[in-house]
Each structure stands twice: as C-alpha cells, then as structure tokens.
C-alpha cells in the first residue's frame, strides 16, 4: 500500500507530501503526529474529491485516503 510518513514535518509539508504521493494512486495512508496536518490533509483531500478518515495510533495519527 502507498504510505507516507510525515511525522515531525510541519504544515504545509505534510499536505505537499500527500499531494505528491496521491499521484501514485490510492489507497494512501499518511502518518502524522498532530492534529494540524490531520485537519489540513483532510481538507485538502476532501476538496480534491477523495474519501478521508483518520484514527489515533498511539501518539500519532493515521489518515487513510481513498477514492
């Protein structure tokens, strides 16, 4: 599965990494470590017409993006 580890990066980098990774297709899983990129990536991907969900994994968040 397509996966991006954006933990430690601050916005807009996680969104850019997501945008680039989406070019190689869905489903895509993005790992981030705080709520700001969760919100930004969710907004970006849903604006682009994807289905987005996230869940907490320990101290991090796992965002799943699919068609």
């Amino acid at each position, binding site marked *: 599965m397509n996966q991006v580890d954006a933990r*430690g990066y*601050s916005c807009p*980098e996680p969104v850019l990494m997501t945008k680039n990774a989406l070019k190689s297709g869905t489903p895509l899983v993005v790992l981030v470590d705080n709520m700001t990129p969760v919100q930004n990536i969710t*907004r970006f991907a849903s*604006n682009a017409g994807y289905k987005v969900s996230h869940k907490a994994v320990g101290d991090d968040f796992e965002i799943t993006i699919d068609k």
Partner: protein
Amino acid sequence: MASKLKQHGLIIGAGLIVGLIAAILSWQGNPANMGFCIACFLRDIAGAVGLHRAAVVQYIRPEIIGLVLGAMGMAFFGKEFQVRGGSSPVSRFVLGFCVMVGALMFLGCPLRMVLRIGGGDLNAVLGLAGFAAGIFVGTLFLKMGFSLKKSTPQPMVEGFLMPAITVGLLALLVAAPAFIFFSEEAPGSLRAPIALALAAGLIVGALAQKTRLCMVGGIRDAIMFQDFHLLLGFVAIGVAALAGNLVLGNPVSFSFDGQPVAYNDGLWNMLGMVLVGFGSVLLGGCPLRQLILAGSGNSDSSVAVLGMVTGAAFCHNFGLASSGKGPTANGQIAVIIGLVVVAAIGAANLNKKK
C-alpha cells in the same frame, strides 16, 4: 452550504472576533490600527528590557503575554500541547530576524497590515501586494522541496520556557521596576489598560490556537492548494476591524497620506512585506502563528520568536526601522540583505526528490 459553514464557520468567527477586539484595543488606548501587531509589540518588549534604546517604542505589551498563554491554555484544553523542536533552529532564528527587518520596514506584521487596511490605510494595500508576492516566491521554494527538516519530541522544559518567560514579563510589567523602560511618548505610550490588553491576548491566543489562524498560511494555501480556508479568517479580520472602527468612532479615512504609524513610500511598503511573506512561508507561518505555536510547546517557533525580538533590537539600534517619516537608507539596505539571506537559506534547504 451548511457543510461549508461547518467547515469554515469557526475560522470566520475567530477572524471577526480578532478584528473586533483589535478595534476595541485601539479605541481603548492602543495606537491607531495597532490593536494587535506582533512585530511592533515584540519590538516594544525588546525596548522595555533595554535591548534597544528607542525611547518611543518601549513597553511590555500584555497582548503578547496573553497570546502565548491563551494558546497554551487552549492547547492543553484540546490535548494538543506537544513539546517538539530541533527542526533547523538556527535557520529559524535567522528567518525570524529577517521577517522582523521586513516588518519594521513596513511598520507592521501581517496582522497589523490587515488592521491597517481595515482602518483605510491604502499603503497597506501595497504592503499586501508585496506580502502576496513574497509568499508566492516562498511557495516556489516549497514546491522545489524546501524543508527545515523534521522536528522531534523534546524534554518538557523546552515547551514551557517561552510561556514562563511571558509570565516573567507580566511580573515585570505589573511591578514596573525602575530598570524597565516604559515610553512616555507615542506610540509606546499609547496603550490599552493592562487587564483589557491581557484578556484580549488570551482570547485571541486561544482562538488562533484552535483555528490555526495564520495570515501567511491563508495566501500560501490559496496559491498552493486552492484552499481558501485560512484566507477566510484573514478577510474576516479586515472586515471586522473596519466595522469595529466605524462603530467605535476610531478614525477611518481611505487614503495614502497622514495614516497613523505609517508612511507613503509605496516601493518600500511593498518590499518590506515581500521579505515578511517570503521569510514567513519558509518559517511555516506568520509572526502571530509563531507566537501561538511557541505557546503550544513548539520550541522551533520559540526560537523564531527570539529571532524576531533580536531582529527588532537590531532594527532600532542600527536605524533600520522606518518611522512615520518614511524608511531609512540603512533599513533599505537591510531589507535587500534580508531578501538575499532568506533566499540563501531557502536554496540551502532544498531537498533532492525522494
């Protein structure tokens, strides 16, 4: 429509409240169109503790203290207080320094730029044009892979020091010992009552933490992702400031001349804000956002804030800061150098494609 309102309602509401509070602060004693100005207020604090000796801009602005502590409170409330750092701290210090050089050329941070527009200051519209241009250049660097690299979890004390410093400043403000400098002339002498200014900072700090309000982020996201979410907050601030000024009877006149704490040299108003926009994009957020993150445990942003404070001190020690009379030759040279430095930091941090 309902879902749009749900998505954007909070940021618009926050923007409206920030603009209104800014108008109230000016009405209650702050300089005109300066309800909030992160650059000016950090500069005033630098002066109050004697880092520069420009007698007219020295005061411990309670708004700054409130912003940091309000953000910290909201971050704890939302379980978002995370102590992180170690992402190119010295680069961030220098970028913060350069952003301040640009802001004191223009006479305001991006937030004050919006408030100036809300007060009818057309010079700030030129500033906005420069600001957007600087952000655009910054986004080109981001698209080429610019990164200040990862932050990592840090010891708790790293996240608490900046809030602790602001508490110390509050103690100095209230105790007002003789070694702290407080301006007796405008604009440093123009100040809203301490309790009001502190409360205003706390409210805005909490709102900005919750909503991620950011002047730079608004234009950046619009350019890079056609995402206008943060920009709505930016627009709301200007609208509410204008409405608030009109209702409260603050002076509003749409013109270039005679604007408070401003000058009408269009080129340097623009170039100052080009530097602010460019530097802030590389930092990941405007001066307000840096303060908010500094209150949320982000030690990288704390370093950027310290860079801004140091930059402010340099600006007044070496005659780089503009005044109502206009820009200085030293300041013009400093802005050009600042642009070169920011571009160099940008170029040095371009990642090869992974």
